[in-house]
Structure formats: structure tokens, C-alpha cells
């Protein structure tokens, strides 16, 4: 993993230097998509209900619907490529995908690697699931305790640095939850919305979400860094603006059975057309 990360950051660094050199817009990605007649979007296949597979193997979910909408507006076909948190930015900058809508939290260090364009389309906070018997009351209780997490999540590092927890990161959530149940860790750190739906399913009666969510962090989609201030970046800003203003994302949330977030309602209110009824 270390080798991979070193190589990946070297690759990212190389891309940044070329991107800053080429200040003027060449619109390479946009032109390639148009020429090919196909938009390749990197989405999650392991993040229900935003991106996952149905039992026929097709990719479905809220972000998949968004990706299809983008392709429809561009008038091209869509190809969905499953990405993981650990490789999504490399795939985008390497040119394997043209656009990434993959539950990515908008972080300052990520903006240096990929072309993140606003406005943010979603948000989620960090929380933990822990056994009721452990009685965790505040984040500080996690100090020097083993905490399970998922590889590639940005808050793993935050929980380690801010609260001194010892994060054990797994490749899959099933493995992380298994470790939690096996008492290999005190808590499982993840998105609050996902933990909430697990707890409400009734399969985790011995567990609770005891803390206040932290780091409410907007999600961002991304285009290649070179496209950020060019046609593709501007177009994606427009797409997101429309999704938020028209309430289409609220509709999608409902369609996929996600608990309604205040964020989307606030955004719709904020962007309301002043002439509309």
C-alpha cells in the first residue's frame, strides 16, 4: 500500500506540474468525450445507496442517476466504472475516467490533485458505532483505543490526530463491522447517515451512535484538474446548481430511501429563483 501511495503521489505531482504549465484551456477531456460519444464516469460500487450493484450486477444508486443525467445533458452515452476511495483520484488524473462522482468529501488537499468544482451537491458527518456496553460519551474517550474504519476515508486521519484513536482500516465495511463485533475495536468510524440506517434496520440492537457528528463535510464531484476552469468544469458547476435549485437531488434522495438531509433543503432555499412563485 505504501509503495502504491508513494507512486500515486508522484504521479499526482507530475500531473499538477503539467497542469499549472498549461494555463490556457485545451478542453482535451471535453473534446475527447464528444468525439468518442461516450462519457466515462467513476462511481462507487460499494457505497449503498449512493452507488452499489443490484443482484443482476448493474450499478445503481443516487450518484449513478446523477451520472446518467450528466451524460444525457451532454448528449452522449454513459459508461460507469466502479472506483474505490483509494484509487478514484488516480483514475481521474490518469484519464481512465472523465468525471468522478464517488462520494468524495471536499478537502483542501484533494483540490490540489483533482478539479473539484462547486457548488457541493451533498454533505455528511463523521460518527462512530460502538457497543452500548462500552459507554463512549465523548470523542476523547477514543484516545489510545483501537477504532475500525474503512480504507481511503479522510476522517481516519482526523480521528487519529485529534483524538489519538488507533485506527485499523479495512478494505470493506463488512470486515470492519465483523471486527467491531469480534471486539477487536471499541468503535467503527464512518458516515453518520450510513450508521444511522444500520441502527434503524434493527440488526444491531447491542450498538449505538453515541457521539455528536463531527466534520460535517460537503461532498464534491470532480473533473480532471486541467478542465477545472474550462468548459467541462463550468458545465459541471451548472449541473450541480440546477440539481440543487430544482430539488432533483431531494427527489433522488427520496427515490433511494435516504433520510432527507437539511443541507439539500437549505441549498434549495438559498438558490431559489426570486421571480418564481
Amino acid at each position, binding site marked *: 500500500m505504501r509503495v502504491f501511495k508513494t507512486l500515486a503521489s508522484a504521479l499526482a505531482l507530475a500531473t499538477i506540474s503539467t497542469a499549472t504549465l498549461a494555463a490556457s484551456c485545451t478542453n482535451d477531456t471535453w473534446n475527447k468525450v464528444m468525439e*468518442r460519444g461516450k462519457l466515462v464516469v467513476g462511481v462507487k460500487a460499494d457505497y449503498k445507496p449512493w452507488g452499489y450493484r443490484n443482484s443482476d450486477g448493474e450499478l445503481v444508486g443516487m450518484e449513478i442517476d446523477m451520472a446518467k443525467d450528466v451524460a444525457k445533458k451532454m448528449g452522449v452515452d454513459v459508461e460507469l466504472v466502479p472506483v474505490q476511495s483509494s484509487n478514484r483520484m488516480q483514475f481521474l488524473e490518469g484519464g481512465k475516467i472523465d468525471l468522478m462522482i464517488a462520494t468524495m468529501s471536499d478537502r483542501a488537499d484533494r483540490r490540489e490533485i483533482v478539479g473539484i468544482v462547486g457548488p457541493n451537491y451533498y454533505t455528511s458527518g463523521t460518527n462512530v458505532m460502538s457497543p452500548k456496553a462500552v459507554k463512549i460519551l465523548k470523542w476523547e474517550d477514543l484516545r489510545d483505543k483501537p477504532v475500525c474504519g474503512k480504507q481511503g476515508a479522510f476522517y481516519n486521519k482526523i480521528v487519529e490526530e485529534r483524538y489519538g484513536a488507533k485506527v485499523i482500516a479495512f478494505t470493506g465495511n463488512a470486515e470492519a463491522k465483523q471486527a467491531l463485533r469480534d471486539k477487536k475495536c471499541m468503535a467503527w468510524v464512518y458516515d453518520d447517515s450510513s450508521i444511522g440506517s444500520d441502527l434503524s434496520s434493527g440488526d444491531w440492537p447491542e450498538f449505538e451512535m453515541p457521539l455528536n457528528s463531527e466534520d460535517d463535510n460537503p461532498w464534491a464531484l470532480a473533473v480532471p484538474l486541467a478542465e477545472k476552469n474550462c468548459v467541462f468544469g463550468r458545465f459541471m458547476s451548472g449541473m450541480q446548481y440546477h440539481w440543487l435549485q430544482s430539488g432533483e437531488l431531494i427527489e433522488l434522495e427520496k427515490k433511494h430511501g435516504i433520510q432527507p438531509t437539511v443541507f439539500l433543503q437549505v441549498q434549495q432555499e438559498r438558490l431559489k429563483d426570486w421571480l418564481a412563485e
Partner: protein
Amino acid sequence: MKTIPGVTARASTDLPVLKPFDVAAHSPDSMMMTRWVAGLPWWSPAAILTISLIWPAIAYAQSSYSIGQATEALWRWMPFLLREGFLLNVLISIFAMLIGTLAGAALGLGQISINKWVRRFAWFATQLFRNSPWLVILFIVLLALPFEVRIFGTIMTFPDWWKAVIGLSLPVMANISEIVRGAVASVPTAQWEASESLAFSRRQTLWRIILPQCFKRMIPPWMNWYAILTMATPLCSLLGVQELITLSRQAMESENNHPELLMPFYGFALLMFFIYCYPIARATIALERRFSVKL
């Protein structure tokens, strides 16, 4: 005083001597993976499946998500996992073996070349890829090769699983190279001398006399490496290749990540690899027995 070699002094001679045939040196290595797999009784997969289905029922008796639901989930996903997942593992292993064998044979012959530089290069390439971790080679290949190439205006995409094929074929190549070199070296040198005395050229000797004898003894280790390679294909899941293990994880995600799913799903993957590799292992043993030297 006059010495008598072999009696009053060490036996030595400068005349060519045909030494007795060393059976142990020509028998297959008992530590081979295929021998171990083939040594398992035939009912092992059934036992594994039973355990993987019963285990969660014992371990998670307190959970409301029943083992019946987990098995039912596996049943629903099975066709997809087989069709899209395991088939890709098999395809990757076949293509990697094909490329690895061709390149490895060339490299192995390079190792016995009469040209010093060809020999050195072949030796270096063999040792490099034989002594590197497979995962590291896979990562390097994934990052070094482009996602697509533009040839005369048409865009050719280079899918991930082809990178995995190339990444896996490199260590296989190096090991096949050693098999070829070893097989050639195992042919008694008298064969070379005899063919030289019959005025065969080096190329004729190699192709008509030495290699036909090697072929037979290379088959068991070659199949052994195929079995090892097939079992190594799940490494590709770390590169995001959509093979059996990656898809199993995604399937478990869709089933809400109940830990009860872990044993049935990974047990199923194990079973698939066993069913595929067990006949190969048995066949390897059978071939070894047929080709073994009988005294």
C-alpha cells in the same frame, strides 16, 4: 611407491565417465503446491461449504440477521459472481499463463545462450521478476501503463484486467524461464556430446534432441505454476479489477454489509478456486507418475 587410483589414492580420471542415474534429482519436489492440493481428499470442498454455512449460525446466534438470509443472499448473487467474477479470474490466469509461458521459454533459452550478453540479460530479468513480490509488480504495471492509447486517431482503451494479465505474467515468465533452464540442464551432457559427434549443429541439437526430452519433464512444474497463478489472481482485487473478490465485496455491500455474509461469500470463492485447481493438481500428479523414472 606406485599408487593405485581408487585403492591407495583418491579415484580420479580425466576420461569421460557416465555416472549412475540420480533418481532423487529427477523426481518432482514434494513441496510443490499442486502436490499439496492434490493430497487433499476429494470431499474437502463439501466440508468447506458446510462449515462456511454452519459457522455463522454458531458464531452469530444473537443476531437477528439469520444464516438463512445470508445463504439466500449468496444464492441470489451466485450467477453474477460466477459469470462476471470467477470467469474473469480464469481468463486472467489463462492469458497470463500464455504470455508468461511464451516469454519465459524465450528467456529460459536465453539463459543457456552461447552469447555472453544474452545470457546475462536473461539471467538478470529472470532473477529480477522471480524475486520481487507479485503485488509490487502489479502496482508498478498498473501505474506505468496508460489507460488508453491513440493510434491513428482512434482511441484504444487498455482495460484494467489486461494490465493485471501483464503484471501477473511477469513473475510467471521468470519462473518458467527457470523451469526451461533447469530442464535443459537436467539432460545428461552425454546427449550433447553424442549429437556433436554425429555432426548436429547447436541449433539442431537443441531443437531435435534436447528440447523434446525436456518437454515431458517441464509439464508438471508448468501446471504447478498455473495452479499458483490462478490462486494469485484475487490479488487483482487490490487494483480495483472487477474479479471475484472485488465483486463479492460489492455484493456484500449491497446486502448491507452484514458480517454474517463474510463466511458464505468468501467460502464460496474458496470453493470455486478449489473446484478449478483440484483437477489440475490431480492431473499434475498423474503426469508426474507417468513420466517418472522407473528403475
